């Protein structure tokens, strides 16, 4: 079978565009959920703050400005078709794309090379996650993850006999701890299963899923409980603490039940392209 060939150069170009798009154009599902929250919110101050947040997204899009000054630690997800042939250095192509994209978009350099010594920040390296999938295409996603919310990530290794309620209580407690600092209203990513490391990655990947009306009992319970906390936009009250709850699961061990929470601020940013 003839393999499809994709060059390092093609990948770099796509990543340049995705970095700028993700940082300046708010995801449509996030934008729409903010609009719908504005319609249902009763608290006047919360309403005004939601208007500011929507207005901010409009200004960012029009002026090609970063939605948030924390343009994040760029995370690049690569879903690589196993029948695809890559020509050139893939990792180098990705980092080059992020470097050029962040420079071109005047996006912030927020990465210190040495986490202990904390030297002058640069805009690379990005964190890269790869996955091998069927097919002959590559799906590239850039997710600039701000650290106001990333710092509030939580992981708990539950007993396998834990109840849904235990899981919900853990999520709500962690969201309360996150509070105004993680820029509510939030989008909540939950990862359940796998190993400790995988649960955290699942929680992050859950944030890449579109915000849709909730179907499972657990996600509905979490949404209700989080909105009942009354944290509200900017932590100043109201019923809009959470715009969406996305859960991703994976098989796990009989002895455990890993549960991870990865919160996103209201500026949940990502952009994807398949080539």
């Amino acid at each position, binding site marked *: 079978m003839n393999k499809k060939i994709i060059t390092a150069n093609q990948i770099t170009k796509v990543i340049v565009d995705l970095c700028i798009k993700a940082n300046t154009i708010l995801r449509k599902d996030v934008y729409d959920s903010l609009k719908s929250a504005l319609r249902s919110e009763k608290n006047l101050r919360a309403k005004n703050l939601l208007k500011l947040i929507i207005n901010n997204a409009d200004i960012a899009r029009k002026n090609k400005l970063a*939605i*948030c*000054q*924390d343009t994040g630690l760029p995370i690049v997800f690569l879903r690589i078709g196993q029948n695809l042939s890559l020509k050139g250095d893939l990792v180098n192509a990705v980092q080059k794309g992020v470097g050029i994209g962040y420079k071109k978009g005047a996006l912030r350099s927020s990465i210190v090379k040495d986490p202990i010594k904390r030297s002058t*920040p640069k805009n690379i390296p990005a964190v890269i996650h790869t996955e091998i999938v069927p097919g002959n295409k590559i799906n590239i996603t850039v997710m600039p993850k701000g650290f106001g919310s990333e710092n509030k990530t939580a992981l708990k290794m539950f007993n396998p006999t834990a109840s849904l309620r235990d899981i919900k209580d853990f999520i709500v407690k962690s969201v309360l701890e996150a509070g105004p*600092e993680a*820029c509510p209203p939030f989008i909540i990513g939950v990862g359940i299963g796998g190993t400790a490391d995988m649960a955290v990655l699942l929680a992050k990947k859950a944030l890449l899923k579109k915000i849709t009306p909730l179907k499972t009992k657990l996600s509905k319970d979490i949404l209700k409980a989080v909105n009942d906390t009354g944290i509200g936009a900017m932590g100043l009250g109201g019923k809009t603490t959470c715009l969406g709850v996305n859960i991703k699961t994976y098989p796990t061990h009989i002895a455990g039940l890993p549960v991870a929470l990865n919160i996103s601020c209201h500026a949940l940013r990502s952009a994807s392209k398949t080539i």
Partner: protein
Amino acid sequence: MKNKFNLPLSQNIINALKIGQQILLSGTIYTARDQAHLRLVNIVKKNGSIPGFLKGQAIYYCGPTKAFKGSPIGSCGPTTSARMDIFAPILIKKGLKVMIGKGRRSLLVKEEIKKQKGIYLIAPAGCGALLSKKVKKSKIVCFKDLGAEAIHKIEVEDFPVIVAIDVKGKSVFKQ
């Protein structure tokens, strides 16, 4: 009620501001976040005082994105204030008056604000593009090697903030 104020804020104005009050600020503010705070506190330990230009002034917890040609600044929203909680009390004690950021503060910060009659304000979090339109001028005044974390002197006009901890140490946040 008057809601527009010029910086630096006088003690009388600070005394009159109440938690939850929405105000617009015009004048000079200085950006500083984690690494700049570490350095400022080291300066205090060495010299016994904060740099003169910060006395009576406002610090904004912010690391802006780069400016496009023709603009004074890029996106410039607030960062999490709590990370500065270990440094803020000593700076307040040495004459810093106003802090602008996002989120809650520690008990020690609240107490020092009360003792020194300072104030803590919050800016709309995650609205850096909108806030950039309120900045008229920006220049780095020190710690240039820190990049976005350098101290920028910025001139703002009608910069929107909400009073989060008032002169009595009372906080707008419930939890």
